[in-house]
């Protein structure tokens, strides 16, 4: 730090300090407290003394079948987000950008509309869609001619993520479409025109020009999708009913919630819940680092 920097340090501090204090109090403190709890037997509701228990909760978590079930479901959500929402959003943005459909504004608005709704409201709407004799069952009854046919995927642990994945695509694809569309509109028209003059077809323009230019946007979208998928709670909570459906569709944040806030029979539920929260953060970081690695590997020269 040189003399000028030292003189200006209080000014920098004046700018940064208020936000830093708020950040430390609201974000950093709970994070550190959660880490502390996960290594202790402390129950904040009960108070009293706490003891260091080492990795006890982490060991328990790794032996808990619910954790692996929730992790599997979370990875399905991540896969749906990264390999479903982003590619579909990208393709839709490209279709709109290249004016391949009429009434572009209408389609753009319709696709983005779900994003304006509260996720809990969306969850409730989809819950109604999947209920007994609901609209989806009605379609099945119409197609099969069996008036007793029902949509039962929500009752099966190995099928429940299919309708949920569909709902996730319906909600979030519009968001990625808007992100891609905004970035596509920054591309000079002359670039595409010159490619056309050189004889490039639509597929070549898409793969050789558009995709490389937007690689950084794809990466950022992937990071957003991964982080959003792992912390996602509201949609699955809203779309499932308490009991078998929610157990089938268990994801890590709901597992954490059910453990810390509902399992009164477990006196160490807060510590165990914190352990699950920390696992969510660790898994998110691993996946983001992994997606960065993949991105660099396949497009080493691109901006990030």
């Amino acid at each position, binding site marked *: 730090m040189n003399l000028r920097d030292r003189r200006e340090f209080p000014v920098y501090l004046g700018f940064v300090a208020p936000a830093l204090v708020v950040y430390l109090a609201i974000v950093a403190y709970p994070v550190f407290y959660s880490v502390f709890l996960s290594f202790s037997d402390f129950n904040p509701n009960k108070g009293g003394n706490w003891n260091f228990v080492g990795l006890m909760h982490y060991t328990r978590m790794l032996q808990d079948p619910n954790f692996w079930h929730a992790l599997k479901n979370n990875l399905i959500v991540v896969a749906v987000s990264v390999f479903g929402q982003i590619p579909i959003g990208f393709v839709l943005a490209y279709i709109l950008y290249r004016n391949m459909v009429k009434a572009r504004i209408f389609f753009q608005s319709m696709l983005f509309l779900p994003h304006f709704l509260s996720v809990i409201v969306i969850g409730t709407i989809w819950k109604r869609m*999947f209920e007994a004799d609901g609209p989806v069952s009605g379609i099945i009854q119409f197609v099969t001619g069996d008036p007793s046919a029902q949509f039962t995927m929500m*009752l099966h642990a190995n099928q429940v993520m299919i309708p949920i994945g569909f709902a996730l695509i319906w909600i979030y694809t519009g968001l990625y479409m808007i992100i891609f569309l905004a970035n596509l509109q920054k591309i000079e028209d002359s670039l595409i025109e010159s490619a056309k003059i050189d004889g490039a077809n639509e597929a070549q323009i898409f793969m050789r020009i558009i995709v490389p230019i937007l690689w950084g946007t794809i990466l950022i979208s992937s990071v957003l999708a991964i982080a959003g998928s792992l912390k996602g709670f509201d949609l699955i909570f809203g779309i499932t009913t308490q009991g078998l459906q929610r157990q089938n569709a268990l994801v890590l944040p709901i597992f954490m919630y059910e453990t810390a806030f509902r399992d*009164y029979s477990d006196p160490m539920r807060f510590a165990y819940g914190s352990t699950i929260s920390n696992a969510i953060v660790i898994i998110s970081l691993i996946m983001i680092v992994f997606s960065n690695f993949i991105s660099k590997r396949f497009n080493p020269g691109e901006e990030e």
Partner: protein
Amino acid sequence: MKKALVLLIVIMMLVPFVVIAGGQQEQGQKSEKIVVDVMAYGDNSNQEGVSWKRIVEAFEKQNPNIDIDDEMLYDEAYHQKVVARLAAGDVPDMAYMGADARWGAPWKEADQQWDHREYLDPMYDRDLIPAMGPNGEIYEIPLGTSNITTVLYMNEDLVKSLGFSAPETYEDMVAMVPAARQAGLDVVTIDGADGWAWGSCLMSAVIARMSGDRNWVSKAVAGENKFNDPAMLKTLEFVQQMVEDGVITEKSVLVDYGANTSKYNNGEALFMVQGQWVAGAIENPDVKAATQLMAWPELPGQKDGVEGSVAAAIQVGYGLTKNGASDPAVRDAALKFLNYFYSEPESTQRLRDGAIVAPILKGYDVPEDIEPIVKRKVELAQTAMNTEVIDAFLTGAPNDALNSGAQKIVAGQATPQEVADQVEKLVRQ
């Protein structure tokens, strides 16, 4: 220009101080009042929440020196906030609470249950308020007498239209299946998509019948009975049998609370399984008039001594916390509010709304002009033997396993033995 800019900055910097000073002045005025911090239950769209707001407003008008500072939440949001506030040490002075494994557990764990006995107004009928602690403590004032969770609602007109009468045995209900199916009706509708409905509203009644012991559940939790004993196995097998007999349909595991009530309201089912509180939600006037509230008829394999029993839990209500009771001024203000809240006119209103079975007031007479459905509820409460509600004693993972286990049995994904073994294993862990 420079001076004007400096002046603007100074004014902007002064704004927060002025606002804070104003707030402190307001706080000063407020501090002259006794503030009772309350966690209330309900929301602005349901009767419970609307009534609460009205009562608070009227009470504060009558008692300008008392401020009921309430935070009103409903359902999961309420339970979540209770846990969060207690864990953070932000204990309210008074709250909507219970004394069982679900509604009382967080308060008990936080050591915030306060014994009201010494301070209860003589207007309450102490015989109608059950003991909630080991020494007869009363931790909350129940909204009403025991909360029946296993009511069988019967649409009498619909049953008669098919040529039947009120069932005396389970077999009588089975006999209704072909005619009901022919008419496109369900025999019994249950909100089977909600796991808790199986435990609270169905199996709680069945376990007492199959065991012949009204206290089987608490004994099982204490280790005297096992959850894979024959009584519980027979209970789970009965759930399976109901589906096989067509009394409950397989699709009931896809029907949630709202859809279940709508189904009954719309005359699409002969019977509905739910708690006593749903009586207030039956809005179709024809269905309401035709509804009889009854206990389950005699079940196959039922033991003697528990005929016509219903499962019932101690009703939830409002109670002071130890934190609130520690300040005599707050304690007295809160008790004054409670006496207003539970007064005869308000209790009668609650009765009319269908929210309670009967008030817990001394010498209370049910008004003559009360709706027939409410009268029938009172009759059921007065005549039926009460047995234990499962989730008043069983909580957490074992209770979830039992409820979702029943759903799996109905969906054909598990056997009664598998579910019973799983619950027993979790309880003993």
